């Protein structure tokens, strides 16, 4: 057993850039609401299976909730457990709220010291004193991540375009999704069409079926893609990409990822 432990640690360290290899999501208690004062509760977690809280919570430091008129909304009753974080959002305005965990500009570095894999997360200004220059196999990435969901009280309203990183737009509103219908979306990168990118879509409840039943589509040269919702449920939508558009000379590449949670209702 003793001999196994170093091997296990080595294996654990081999896990790629991402602890990050775990899926992350926001899970809203409702996305379509009526009435004057509406509350939703939202959970945030990371795990091996979408919407199953089996790995870790997500810190809520970077939580941004925006009202239909563009006001910043203070989330209520924030709580961080071991396996998930939770917060409430009060929807006072009519229209669509954007609820997002936004990472803009965090640095991730990995390199080798002898046979050992090293990793470091932090801010651009701290790279120099934490990451050895010229280390073996050194890759320093800047991260631009967005994990988001939407909730609408009353009529859905247009969402402000996202200027940085990957995001969802298009003809179909993210809170107007119904089983059997085809949604037409556009994936954007820094506000421009994200061309020829793969989009992965998975329905919740995978524990109660044998296959994940993921839907994989590719954006066209205008960033467009379509999804025909096979049935009602909560869907996890994901895309990622890498490029060299870093905002700091400390990083050699930019790693961009996007997750949206979308609710599809029955007809």
């Amino acid at each position, binding site marked *: 057993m003793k001999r196994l432990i170093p091997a296990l640690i080595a294996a654990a360290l081999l896990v790629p850039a991402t602890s990050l290899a775990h899926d992350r999501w926001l899970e809203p208690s409702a996305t*379509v*609401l*009526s*009435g*004057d*004062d*509406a509350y939703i509760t939202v959970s945030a977690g990371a795990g091996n299976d979408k919407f199953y809280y089996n790995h870790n919570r997500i810190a809520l430091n970077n939580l941004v909730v925006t009202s239909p008129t563009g006001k910043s909304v203070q989330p209520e009753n924030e709580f961080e457990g071991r396996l998930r974080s939770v917060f409430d959002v009060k929807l006072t305005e009519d229209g669509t709220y954007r609820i997002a965990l936004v990472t803009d500009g965090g640095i991730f570095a990995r390199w080798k010291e002898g046979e050992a894999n090293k990793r470091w997360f932090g801010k651009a200004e701290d790279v120099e004193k934490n990451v050895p220059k010229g280390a073996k196999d050194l890759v320093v990435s800047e991260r631009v991540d967005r994990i988001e969901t939407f909730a*609408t009280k*009353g*009529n*859905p309203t247009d969402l402000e375009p996202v200027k940085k990183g990957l995001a969802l737009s298009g003809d179909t509103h993210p809170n*107007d999704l*119904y089983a059997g219908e085809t949604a037409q979306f556009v994936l954007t990168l820094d506000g421009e069409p994200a061309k020829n990118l793969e989009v992965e879509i998975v329905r919740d409840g995978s524990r109660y079926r044998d296959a994940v039943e993921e839907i994989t589509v590719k954006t066209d040269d205008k960033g467009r893609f379509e999804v025909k919702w096979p049935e009602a449920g909560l869907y996890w939508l994901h895309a990622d990409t890498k490029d060299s558009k870093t905002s700091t000379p400390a990083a050699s590449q930019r790693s961009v990822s996007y997750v949206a949670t979308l609710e599809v*209702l*029955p*007809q």
Partner: protein
Amino acid sequence: MKTSIKTTLACALAGVYTVPLHAASLAVEIELPRIEVAEYHRPYVAVWLQSADRQTVRDIAVWYDYKMPKEEGKKWLKDLRQWWRVSGRGQDELADGVTGATQAAGKHTIQVAATHPALADLPAGQYEVIVEASREKGGREVLRLPLAWPAQQAATAEAQGESELGHVKATLTP
């Protein structure tokens, strides 16, 4: 409910005096089944007219707990899922002549006069009268009754619900 009866009555009377005799009217009969459960709540019900392309949507009736304090009854309007999508969510306040209290199990008839906002100036075309019911701690059901407007002759369309709705019938009188 008083408001709604009065309004309907007013519409009907107005119909008698101002609308030519050939003006059509619509009757929608809705049966709410008796459901034997420990905790029964009367269903929310929406009745509306909708063109095939959803471009024209006219509310006929919305029965909900509209007298609850602080308009708490509105919280559950979104459970009339299809109605909420095509009509409810786009309205700040529901029209007086449309709103009504929830109804007990049994048969109910809604008379829609030609002057009712649902029928007044309704463009000619193919429509559906849609009846949607949603019950707290219960289920939801939608029935669709095809209807051509204007009516050349008396026409009826009916459907049989299986869970939250019983027999539903629309009668158009030219």
